[in-house]
């Protein structure tokens, strides 16, 4: 049993490693143009150099800062609106239609306007990220609250739960699976927005590094940036998944063998 499990863990890495080796061989032997496709070893080298000079660290920090502040603001507001509209039908009637209408505007289409309004500084990028993640979190929180099993709420009332207690014990846990769907979706949107925003209008961040490298045909840096974005995305998703597994361990689909 144990052996087989370990083998399955290795199995999924066989293909990627194989592809990287092929790439290395082709590129360093000029079977493919190494200026367009620098070999992995060069990219790794560049990464180490950029890290040692502190440049990578600086841009990475700025990008992470934008992502985190953006999702805290946008996600926070979306969560609160979702809660309020879900819990109070009056608020739902008042706000929901408007929000759903605005949702249809692709937030990246606002970039030209945002640049005019806010310039290309931090505010603009954080605003775009916040706007992007707002909708998935809002929609899924609202939906989650609205679809909590009525029977459970009624049961809670029979047992004297009301107000904050009812919310804490019944409504919020019932809405959590849906809220997590929104969170994971918005993490994807968060990086996407950041990539676009940093590529188009910025003077720092991973996206800027890539754009700057383009000017000098430094493909190794560009590819490095792409890989970093991918890793960051994977990291955020893994983190969300971990939190989800911990929080939803009661859920049949997360039920684990003890």
């Amino acid at each position, binding site marked *: 049993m144990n052996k087989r499990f370990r083998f399955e863990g290795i199995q999924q890495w066989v293909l990627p490693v194989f592809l990287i080796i092929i790439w290395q061989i082709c590129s360093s032997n000029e079977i493919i143009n190494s200026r367009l496709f620098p070999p992995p070893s060069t990219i790794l080298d560049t990464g180490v150099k950029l890290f040692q000079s502190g440049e990578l660290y600086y841009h990475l920090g700025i990008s992470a800062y934008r992502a985190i502040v953006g999702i805290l603001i946008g996600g926070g507001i979306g969560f609160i609106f979702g809660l309020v509209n879900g819990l109070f039908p009056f608020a739902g009637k008042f706000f929901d239609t408007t929000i759903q209408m605005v949702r249809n505007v692709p937030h990246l289409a606002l970039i030209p306007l945002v640049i005019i309004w806010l310039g290309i500084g931090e505010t603009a990028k954080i605003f775009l990220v916040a706007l992007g993640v707002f909708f998935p979190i809002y929609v899924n929180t609202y939906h989650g609250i609205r679809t909590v099993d009525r*029977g*459970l709420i*009624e*049961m*809670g*009332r*029979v*047992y*004297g*739960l009301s107000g904050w*207690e009812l919310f804490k*014990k*019944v409504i919020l*846990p*019932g809405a*959590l699976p849906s809220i997590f769907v929104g969170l994971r979706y918005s993490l994807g949107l968060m990086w996407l927005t950041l990539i676009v925003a940093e590529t188009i209008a910025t003077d720092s961040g991973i996206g800027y590094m890539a754009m700057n490298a383009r000017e000098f045909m430094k493909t190794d840096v560009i590819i490095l940036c792409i890989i970093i974005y991918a890793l960051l995305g994977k990291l955020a998703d893994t983190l969300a998944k971990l939190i989800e597994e911990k929080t*939803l361990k*009661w*859920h*049949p689909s997360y*039920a684990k063998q003890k």
Partner: protein
Amino acid sequence: MVQEGAGLHVSKISKSFGHVHVLKQLDLIVQKGEFLSIVGRSGCGKSTFLRLLAGLDESTTGEIMLGGKAIKGINPEVRVMFQESRLLPWLTVVENVEIGLSHSDNSKSKSEIRALATEMLEKVGLAGREDEWPHVLSGGQKQRVSLARALISKPKLLLLDEPLGALDAFTRLEMHQLILNLWKEHQFTAFLVTHDVGEAISLADRVLLLENGNIAMDLNVSIERPRERDNTQVTELEKKVLNRVMNF
């Protein structure tokens, strides 16, 4: 006669939804500790009646007194068992039972509450399952947890709205025994809504037939317990009630 303040007095309650009059001037006096079954066709207002008793809905007119006090809104002395177990899936079995207690009583410590809940689970035959998630339990076991949750606060009145409807025959017989034992021990007043007339008669002291918004038949069942399913008196009464329902 009924002692003052001991039982349940329902006087002239009516309940309408728009212009559908579900209950019409219903009167009922129940002794403390009596076991009542309510039967009647689907849609005749059984659940509506129980919801009024539970304080989940308000009657259009009339009054319900329990132990000398009017029932207004949710009352910790009244507990309900629904057709579905309605356990909170994100709480463990023992935490679900604790829901029945934590709000009626602030004087108990966490460990006292846990001890009571564990004891209650033992009584419904689920010792050792405290820390499991509800979704791993069978339907019958879930209803046992729900029963433990309802009884842990020692309510005066237990309302059972077809709680066994979704269970198989063997599990139902087991649950009958369990409910009767706990009823004897805790001496609460019980209302059991069921569509199974045989079940109604084999469990209750009194069987009520609800029809046209009122009690159309109030039958005393004075057969010694334990009552076998094929007891001739039970079968006779069952026939009588069924004829009354069908031949109208």
